[in-house]
């Protein structure tokens, strides 16, 4: 419905603190991109790479453009906007995504819902490979965890920043694109997933008001 009818799910309030963290991190890594030096985090985590310089960097980061690829068998345009790309001495690219949260304990990628982070990384790796870049299977999440135990607030929230490597596997992507294309070209609106919050809400709202409209008649 989003793609065919242009009917997107109702949006929530924007996550503009998270966007702000992304923006400041980009600025910080850009300093090292220009200087072709390692960021202190890369040194701390022994990552032999520097931020990648490329004339399309801004375009790849732009949510309206991103890195794109036309998937020939389906004629679908697949795109994604990245946070960062690093390059190692062998000329391989590491895709990088920034995440910001605030929770007790260490941040990990182990929660079931974080499968969406992994898929996101795998799509970006696939897109760069399809654009003829040499891409490492290892991508990095720069994960910022806001601390609530800091002594005084004054003017800042402090973060523990961790770099989490992730080994991507793009095997599922080709099949998935074929599947979603099949879904998109069918004439009937597909069934809702049983656990879809949005469709369930729409259904219940319609049922409740329908009940009363019937009683009235």
């Amino acid at each position: 419905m989003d793609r065919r009818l242009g009917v997107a799910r109702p949006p929530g309030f924007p996550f503009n603190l998270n966007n702000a963290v992304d923006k400041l991190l980009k600025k910080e890594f850009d300093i090292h991109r220009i200087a072709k030096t390692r960021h202190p985090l890369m040194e701390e985590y022994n990552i032999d790479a520097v931020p990648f310089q490329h004339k399309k960097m801004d375009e790849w980061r732009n949510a309206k453009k991103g890195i794109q690829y036309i998937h020939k068998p389906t004629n679908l345009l697949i795109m994604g906007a990245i946070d960062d790309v690093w390059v190692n001495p062998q000329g391989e690219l590491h895709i990088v995504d920034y995440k910001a949260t605030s929770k007790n304990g260490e941040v990990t990628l182990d929660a079931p819902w974080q499968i969406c982070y992994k898929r996101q990384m795998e799509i970006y790796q696939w897109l760069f490979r399809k654009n003829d870049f040499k891409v490492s299977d290892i991508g990095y999440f720069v994960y910022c965890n806001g601390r609530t135990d800091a002594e005084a607030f004054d003017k800042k929230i402090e973060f523990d920043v961790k770099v989490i490597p992730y080994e991507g596997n793009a095997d599922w992507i080709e099949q998935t694109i074929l599947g979603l294309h099949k879904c998109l070209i069918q004439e009937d609106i597909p069934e809702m997933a049983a656990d879809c919050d949005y469709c369930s809400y729409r259904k219940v709202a319609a049922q409740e008001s329908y009940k009363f409209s019937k009683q009235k008649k």
Partner: protein
Amino acid sequence: MKISPNSLNLYFECPLCFWLEKNRGIKRPAPFPYELNLAVDEVLRRDFDKHRAKSGSHPLLEANNIPAKLFSNQKLLNEWRNNSKGLEYYDEKTGAILFGVLDDVLDFGKGKLEPFDYKSTGSSVSKIYDRFQLQMDVYTFLLEKNGYATPRKGIFAFYTVDKGNSFEDRLPFKKEIHIIDTDPSYILRTFREAVKFLKKPAPLGHSPECDFGKWAELLKL
């Protein structure tokens, strides 16, 4: 039945969504939690509490020449801050409770209290949305019904991200104080109207402005 400023806001926005939530316990789909805003709130509460225990004044209030102390009754404030309790008004006429969960309260002396709310945002400008005004109007109403005098004002501490600054493992903020006039005169009427509305059958559809209604409407094609 308990009604909060958020519920009233939903009542204005879409009576059907409000009815479903309060009458059937069916809520709009929840977004991901706003973890960073919650973190800022938590850190701010602790910072203000530290100053409350020390002198009752706070550098931010002093810098803005606000002649008030932080409300000194920490125990009571903790109750007002508690999501499952809050500051309440029980309405005998309807048997319903109007309540609000406050961030903080300022004491202007002679028993005059003013609601004080922390807002954090990543956008560059602070903005007083209609829902913020309603929130402060309700808080003012609740304070007055609980026997306090108020200057009929609400005060916000806005923390907006200082994007000109660098990251360096922290999110830098700029601080701003905003004071608004509050009007509690319409709150009781609105609250009773909303409660009365809940006792009626569900409305036949969403309001024309409701995002969920627009969405559902488009899908009927």
